[in-house]
């Protein structure tokens, strides 16, 4: 059994309203020094050792991320 992490973020050229909202809030919190925030998704999977990279990739590509607007990275 292994822990696999998949991070999904909006493609850089796509608007990220979530990140923008956080950036706006930082001012009110009195926190300075943050230039840019992007919010994405973070998945933690417990997978059997037999699960191959290709399947994992398919899983990320079809289920975890929406490739039209998002990129993902797999950390095995």
């Amino acid at each position, binding site marked *: 059994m292994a822990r696999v992490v998949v991070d999904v973020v909006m493609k850089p050229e796509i608007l990220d309203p979530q990140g923008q909202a956080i950036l706006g809030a930082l001012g*009110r919190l009195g926190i300075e020094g943050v230039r840019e925030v992007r919010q994405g998704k973070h998945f933690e999977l417990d997978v059997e050792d037999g699960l191959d990279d290709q399947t994992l990739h398919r899983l990320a590509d079809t289920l975890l991320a929406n490739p039209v607007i998002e990129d993902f990275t797999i950390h095995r």
Partner: protein
Amino acid sequence: MRVAPRVGVLTFPGSLDDRDALRAVRLAGAEAVPLWHGEKWLSDVVAVVLPGGFSYGDYLRAGAIARFSPAMASVIDGARNGMPVLGICNGFQVLCEAHLLPGALIRNDHRKFVCRDQQLRIENNRTDWTSGYEENQQIVVPLKNGEGGYVADRATLDELEAEGRVVARYVGDNPNGSYRDIAGITNAEGNVVGLMPHPEHAVEDLTGPSTDGLAFFTSVLQKLVGTPA
């Protein structure tokens, strides 16, 4: 004639049901006072409603950003000093984020927004906002949310139950996966109440499924003026 008490409704950027809450306050007989999140000064109101909506788009977590507004600092102070505060839907989320109420509200278990007429049981009629109901009275009010699942750790849930702080529970199908069918809770003092469904949308026959929600607003009025409104 006695002057009607001033009940404020706090609007954040992205609040949606603020006009409805103002209307409900008015229909109950109080003076409805619009409040703006950017103002620390609460305009001499004696009770506050945090309305429904999507403050700041609810992009991060529902209510997470709104709680930092200047007006909220005053609401938190007031609440700690016994001022009646009702958080409806997004307002409930703000109250949890501000730690005026325990627990949190997460994405509905079916992961869809849901709008429907919901049956509730009022289990605690000793709060500032529910004294106008009979204990265990069943009412129907609209429910509409995407992140309405009430969650807390077991100790908190047990404590809420033991102290009778579950104000309202869903009757029938649980619409959003809330733990123990919890629809609303109160703080220990009974002045701060959070509720996921929308009583302010059940105050007129013409536009709501019932007028069952009005008693939330008449309850607080009664508390404020001391005699039945």
